[in-house]
Each structure stands twice: as C-alpha cells, then as structure tokens.
C-alpha cells in the first residue's frame, strides 16, 4: 500500500458536432484534401470577420446543463494572443473570464459500479487551429525538416474545453471521468468524441501527496495521450515516477511532460523559457452573448435521461450487473429497445436475460442489430408473458425467439397455430408417460433395479414426445408416481 495518493485534474478539448465551423460557414467535417474547407474567415485573410455559430453555443448550453453547471446570462469571447504558424489570426478566439458555463459536477461510475464525482471548473467555447506537417526530415519532426505544410481545414472548428477540478485520485477514475464526458456528449449529440480523429484531446495534471494531506504536491502536466488506454497508462506511469522520485528523496519539478506510447513512460517536453502572456482581451469583432433564459430553460427541459441516471436505473433499479448496465448505457438504441421491452413486459430480469442473452447472441450471429430485427419490443414482451404464465417453458421460448427473429410472426400466433402451449392436463400427460414407459422397457427395468438417475432420461423422452409442451414438473411427478 503506497503512502501516497494521486491528485489529478484533467483538461480536455472536445470538438463540437456542428454543420459549420465556429465562426464561418465552412463545413465542420473531418479529413478531406488539405485546405479545401477554408474561406477568408477561417484563413484570417485581411478584412475577414468572425460570426458566432449559434448551434455551437446551444451545444455548450446542453453540455453545461447536463452537468448541472450555471449558464450565465452574459458571456463573451476573448482573444488569446500568441504567435503560432497553425493559427491563422495569431490569436485564438476563446473565452477567458466570462465563459458559457461555470461549475458543475461530472458524476461517473467505475467498473465495479462505484459512483464517483469530479467537479468541473468550467466548460468554455473556443476554435481549433490548423495542423502542421513537417517535411524533409524523414520522421515528421520539425528538427531537420526542409519545409512545413499547414492544413487549415480544421482551423476554426468549434471546441469545448472542459476543465476539471483536481478531484480525480487514480488512473481508473480518470478513465471513468473521461468515459462519462464521452457518453454524455455523444448522447446529447454535441460531439462524436472520436479520439482517433482528434475530436477529443486531453491533458492530465498529476501530483501526489501523502495520504491524508490537504496540500497539493507539485504537479506535472502530461500531454500527447491519444486514447483512453494511453491516458490510463500515462497516469499510472507518472504516479509511479513521482512516487519513486519522492521516496528516493527527490523533488518533483513543475513541468510539461510528453507521453511516449512505445516506451510507456513520460518525458520532459521542451518548455518555453518564459511563462506565456496571452494578453487576453474581449474580442471587439464579436458582441457579447446574451442568452435568453427561455432558450436555456427549453434546452434544460429537453435534456434526455443522462448516462449516469440510466446506469443507476439499470444497476441499482433493475439489478443489472455494472457491466450489463454499462453495455446498455453505451448502446443507446439497444437501451431504448430494452426500456420498451421492460415497459411492455413489466419484468426487468427476464427482459435482461432475453435482450443481453439470446437476442444478443442472435444479433452477433446474424450481424443484425436487435432493434433492427423483426423482434419488436412488444413481441418480446409477449414471449416473456408466455414464459411467466408458464404457457411455454424456456426451451420452447428459445426456439420461438429464433423463429421470431426470422420473421415468422408473434409468439402467441405461433404457439396457438402449432399447439405449443404447455399442457398441465394430467390425463394428457399421463398418456404421454404411459406411451414412453411402454417404449422404454429397459430403462424402466433399470430404474426399478435402483438406477434412479435414469429418471432424467425418461423425463426428457416424455418432453420430447410432447413436443416440449408438457409441464416438466408434472411430467416428473407422474413418472415417479407410475414407477414407484
């Protein structure tokens, strides 16, 4: 047990899913030939002016409200001034002291179902920069390169920057937090959150301190992590590095460190000699944003059930395992389907078994999504009702499900058409039993000579003879009665 605990804060940039860029009408789409999705505004040609994308602002309100943040009535855009070749204006339009959202809490769950919380400092809106490629050096690095190419297709894409408080205590929690952000943004439709397309990028501030201490240790900022897995590995590696350093009497230096995926370690990045003075000031090209309260309220009232609430309903409410609940939360159409089945059948456990069991198997085998198969929630609920009322047994239910999947119709119709309803008619079952006993003289003899475990075989024979519809409990009872 380490005598240290980690204190972690995360800053992540998430690309917003909008039709056009943040301040111009260029399409907000990933990829494409370099510099084909550009205009005078996003290239910062002399004289061009930005115009705020309303859709992006409304997305921010959605994201903020989902985490219970305050949406101030008044917000503004500021210029963050610094020179960088990727950045067309040599300033970034961002938000400084009056962001669109302030505060809020991200509640998330870990693999074992534990619920955690991390406070948000803010989520603010800004624009992305272009992308440089260094040519001639062989390894894509700037050192030794003969020239650099810049693609401005991404310049001006709307980004929300989510800044957390240092409430995260482990790599697992960090990933849980990021998962929660991702799930929420995807569900709200505000972002696709595709790390491989750069639509979520994050930095982690990591420090350690003796367990029980209230002061923070010296932090380092880790960059270049390009998957949740690398976030996890990088944080673990950095905690281990800092712990070893302190235990051997060293001190952590405040610095920016890069993550080397191959080596599995962090390393110091060349930092600028002086602290940046970004010279933030209100962008005079943009008027402040005054959000109409009624718009905010309407967005709030239209928020869907959020991932954590859904998780809690499934896990705590319906008794699904954390992994089952997570599986549903992460597949919105499936969860919607599941909810419809539960609503129609009023039976969560059976719904779970069918949806996550047999139906999932069929979906995997056929490559057809459950919610796109011919098995409608109402039909599945009907099947569950047949099982619950003991009209059919589980064996028949499985067969029926496969036939429903093939589009053969509703379970009731098939059961009625083919007389598959379970029978508890003692006279009818007695006839089946008699016929089976007559046909299996050797087994009867064996049973009488003391091999009572042959009873299972005989039960199976009777069930088969009844085409599965005999009530298995009655079959067992009658068999015993006739044999003993």
């Amino acid at each position, binding site marked *: 047990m380490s005598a240290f605990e980690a204190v972690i804060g995360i800053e992540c940039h998430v690309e917003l899913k909008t039709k056009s860029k943040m301040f111009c009408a260029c399409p907000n789409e990933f990829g494409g030939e370099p510099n084909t999705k550009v205009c005078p505004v996003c290239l910062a*040609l002399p*004289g061009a002016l930005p115009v705020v994308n309303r859709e992006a602002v409304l997305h921010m309100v959605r994201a903020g409200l989902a985490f219970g943040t305050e949406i101030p009535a008044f917000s503004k855009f500021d210029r963050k001034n610094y020179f960088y070749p990727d950045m067309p204006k040599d300033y970034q339009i961002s938000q400084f002291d009056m962001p669109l959202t302030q505060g809020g809490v991200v509640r998330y769950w870990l693999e074992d179902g534990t619920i955690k919380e991390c406070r948000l400092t803010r989520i603010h809106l800004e624009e992305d920069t272009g992308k440089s490629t260094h040519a001639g050096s062989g390894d894509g690095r700037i050192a030794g390169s003969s020239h650099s190419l810049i693609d401005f297709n991404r310049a001006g894409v709307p980004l929300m920057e989510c800044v957390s408080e240092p409430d995260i205590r482990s790599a697992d929690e960090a990933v849980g937090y990021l998962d929660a952000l991702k799930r929420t943004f995807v569900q709200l439709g505000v972002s696709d959150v595709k790390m491989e397309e750069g639509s979520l990028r994050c930095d982690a501030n990591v420090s350690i301190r003796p367990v029980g201490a209230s002061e923070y240790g010296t932090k380092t900022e880790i960059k270049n992590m390009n998957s949740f897995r690398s976030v996890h590995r990088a944080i673990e590696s950095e905690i281990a590095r800092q712990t070893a350093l302190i235990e051997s009497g060293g001190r952590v230096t405040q610095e920016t460190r890069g993550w080397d995926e191959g080596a599995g370690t962090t390393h110091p990045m060349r930092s600028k000699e002086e602290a940046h003075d970004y*010279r933030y000031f209100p962008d005079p090209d943009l008027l402040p944003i005054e959000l109409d309260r009624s718009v905010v309220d309407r967005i709030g009232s239209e928020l869907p059930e959020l991932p954590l609430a859904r998780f809690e309903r499934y896990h705590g409410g319906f008794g699904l395992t954390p992994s089952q609940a997570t599986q549903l939360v992460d597949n919105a159409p499936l969860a919607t389907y599941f909810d419809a089945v539960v609503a129609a059948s009023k039976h969560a456990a059976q719904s779970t078994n069918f949806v996550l069991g047999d139906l999932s198997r069929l979906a995997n085998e056929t490559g057809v999504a459950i919610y796109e198969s011919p098995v409608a929630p109402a039909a599945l609920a009907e099947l569950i009702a047949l099982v619950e009322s003991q009209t059919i047994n589980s064996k028949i239910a499985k067969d029926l499900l496969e036939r429903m999947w093939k589009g053969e119709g509703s379970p009731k119709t098939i059961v009625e058409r083919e007389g598959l309803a379970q029978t508890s008619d003692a006279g009818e079952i007695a006839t089946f039993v008699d016929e089976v006993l007559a046909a299996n003289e050797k087994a009867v003899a064996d049973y009488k000579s003391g091999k009572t475990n042959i009873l299972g075989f005989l039960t199976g024979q009777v069930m088969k003879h009844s085409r599965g519809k005999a009530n298995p409990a009655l079959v067992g009872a009658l068999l015993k009665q006739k044999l003993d």
Partner: protein
Amino acid sequence: MRTAAQIARDVNAKTESAREVTDATLAHVDAVDGQIGAYLTRLHDLARAQAARVDERVRNGERLPLAGVPIAVKDNMCLAGTRTTCGSKILEHWVAPYTATAVQRILDAGGIPIGKTNMDEFAMGSSCENSALGTTHNPFDLTRVPGGSSGGSAAAAAAHEAAIALGSDTGGSIREPAAFCNLVGFKPTYGRISRYGLIAFASSLDQIGPLTRTVEDAALAYDVMAGKDPMDSTSIDRAVEPTATALRTDLAGVRVGIVKEFVTETLGPDIAALYARAYADLEKLGAQLVEVSLPTAEYGLATYYLIAPAECSSNLARFDGVRYGLRVDGADVGQMYEATRAAGFGAEVKRRILIGTYALSSGYYDAYYVKAQKARTLIGDDFKRAFATCDLIASPAASSPAFAFNAKSDPYSMYMMDYYTIPMSLAGLPALSVPCGYVTPAGGEAPMPMGLQLAAPLFEEAKLLGAAHAYEQATQHALKAAVAVA
C-alpha cells in the same frame, strides 16, 4: 466633374453612358494623378468592364442609385482581383480574393471602381505621410499633405478623380482629410456599414464612410452602403432611414450644441474667427445655439491611444509571413516572424503595436486597457447628457488646415490633429466634416480649406446629413476648385 447625383441621374436617363463617364474619368486620372498621387492602383479594365455591366442594366430598365458614378476605394478595402495593400510593404503585392461588403454594395448600385487610393499604413496617421507605397499631395496646395489616413481618397475626390471616395474612419480618418481637402467626410454610427472586407486597424472604432464634394453625394453613398451584414456581427440590425430624401434647407428648430471645452481661441485668431462665423451661419439658418459640456472629452486622445493600439496589436498579428503577404526568411519560424514584421511594417505601425502589446500585457492590463475602456464609457455618457439639450454638436473637424510635408515630426503633435474627432469615434457617434471656409496658414501663400464637424446621437444620420446639407447650400464653401483640377 459633376456630382455623383448628377452623373447617376444622367446615366439612368441614358443621356450619357457609364462608359463615357468612365472613359472621361480615367483620362482625367491619367492626366492629373501624376501630380496628386491619389491612387496606388488604377483599375482601367475593371472600371470599363463594370461600366459595360452598368450600361447593360440601365438598358434593361434598372434604375441604379449610383449608375456610372466613378468611385475611389481606400486601399484597406478588399476588391476581388485587385491589389489591396493597406499602404504597407507587408501587403504590397497581396491581391484580395474577395470583395468587402460595402464595396460590393457600391458596385451593385452601379458605381464604377476607378482605383485603390493611398493611405497611411494600416490607417494609422493624420497626414497620409505614413504610407509605405506612395506620396499623395493636397490638390489645393501640392506642397501640403492631404490629411490622413484616408488621404488618397480625399485627394481623389478633391481632384475630381472620383465622385465618391470611400474612406475609413477610426479616430477621424475620414473627417480630417475631408477638412484638409474641402470635402464632405462622413463617418456613420459605428456598425451602420459592414466592416467585412475592411482590413482592420481597431475593430471597435473602424467605420467605412464616404468622402464627397456634396452632402447629397454623401447621403447617396451612405444609403447604398448602410445596413446589417450577416458577415459582420458588429453591424447593426436596425432599419436604415434613407438620408438622401431627408436633406433640408434650413435649421429651424434645430438646437446645435457648442462644446464649452473645445476652445477655438487656442487655434489662433484666424481659425477662431472662422468657427465663430460658422456657428453664426448655423444660427442664421434658424438653429438655436446652446452651450454643452463634454468634461471627459479631454481624455479622449489618451483613451484612444490605448484602445486603438491594443486592438491593432492583435489585429495585425496575422501579418506574420506564413500565409500571405511579405515573407522574409529566418533561421526558424520565430526569426521569420521577426524579420518579416521588421521589414514589412513602418515606424508608426510598429510604435502602435508596441504600445498596444504593452497596454494588454499582464500587469498593465488593468492600469491601461481596462481604465481606457472605463474612460470610453464616461465619454459616451457625456455625449448622452449633452444630447439631452441639443440635437447636434458643432466643432472644428481638425486643429489646423493642411500642413506642409514633414511639418509634424513628433508623433504627439500629429496625434493632436484628431483632438476634435476622437471623442465621437469613442462614442460610436455619426459625425461629419463639411467645408466651412478657408484660412491662410502661417508661412503659406494660398488659403487652405477648413472643416466644420457636426455630430449627432447614435443612428441620427438623417438628421445629421439633413442639417449639413442646409449649411452647405447656404454657405457654398465648397465652390472653390482645387488647383490640380483646373
């Protein structure tokens, strides 16, 4: 050259073609601009092509408010396919791939672009001497400056090289050269005319406006250019009251405020007498003169010289040699930036970038930039109070008539030229300069024109132009022709 109104009337009536007006104007430009230097770029081909389009439209029965009117465009406004330099080495060879909204509206209204005019680099200056690309002479006395920063536009209009010249005014850059060149220079309410395509100097102050020889022409140009532009979020979404139909011939019932703090005696007896006469002329036209106070106006200059440089330090960052314009190689990107900007910007631009960068830097931001913004609010409040007791405010447009080249060597005395115009800019008010007579400057031979500044409350362009028209028609100070035209 006839006025824009007369030309448009004739071309619409088909008594003259746009092509004829254009050819005559281009010939005149070719004859006189060697002495004047109003244009950095002449647009013969573009002008003739546009004239052909205008004639075609008129033949098809369209009535165009600016049919065939020769237009000069200050070279900080984009016009697709033309060199747009901002009077700077850094953009000397840059060809704009798109057209500014205001310019487009002029073209759509039938205006003919004759050329792009010289200007103080990035619109920073009060004499047009800060251009890196050419010298413009005052058509009334070729040894004197035309005023700045829209000096080329003013000279073009005064020398009849265009009927309407577009300028931009940040702290007085339309009104001051208009005064120097005996023109009407009109800066509308901030946000009335789109800035899209106007290369920014100070975004919160810049405003496009016309320089013309008559108030009627200014109204004509303004009516065409004004109005909300979806490409400029600071452009105002509010109906534009037509001004060309609001021109009046008397000032009965108009209360004109004379600013107590703007003491003209310090400008010398000739100038003081000239403005006393101007105010008396207003009274003769039926205006009631009232004294108003703008106690914070004296902080206008200091406020302006923090806000404008702060914004320009950021606006001009994009000229870094990466994407367009001048590039001077360096060992790495940082050195390339430094070499490019060192070679590309002139002294005044560098001075203001440095002042602005300093004013915005952490540790000084509150002391300078924030304080200046507060002062700006106070100045605006002063005007609101003043306009409770008057309809318009009258004052000099500039502190002196046009001066000789190199006469103002220290920046501060140059900045003082805009003393009377800057407060209106900070408050975003509509204001204009209208010719109000001549004084002979010390050491000069010829009398030089002076301008009367009239300012109105926000959005009162119609009232402002209406009153200016009455004054202009009664006094006829614009009648004297500039020497170069003769």
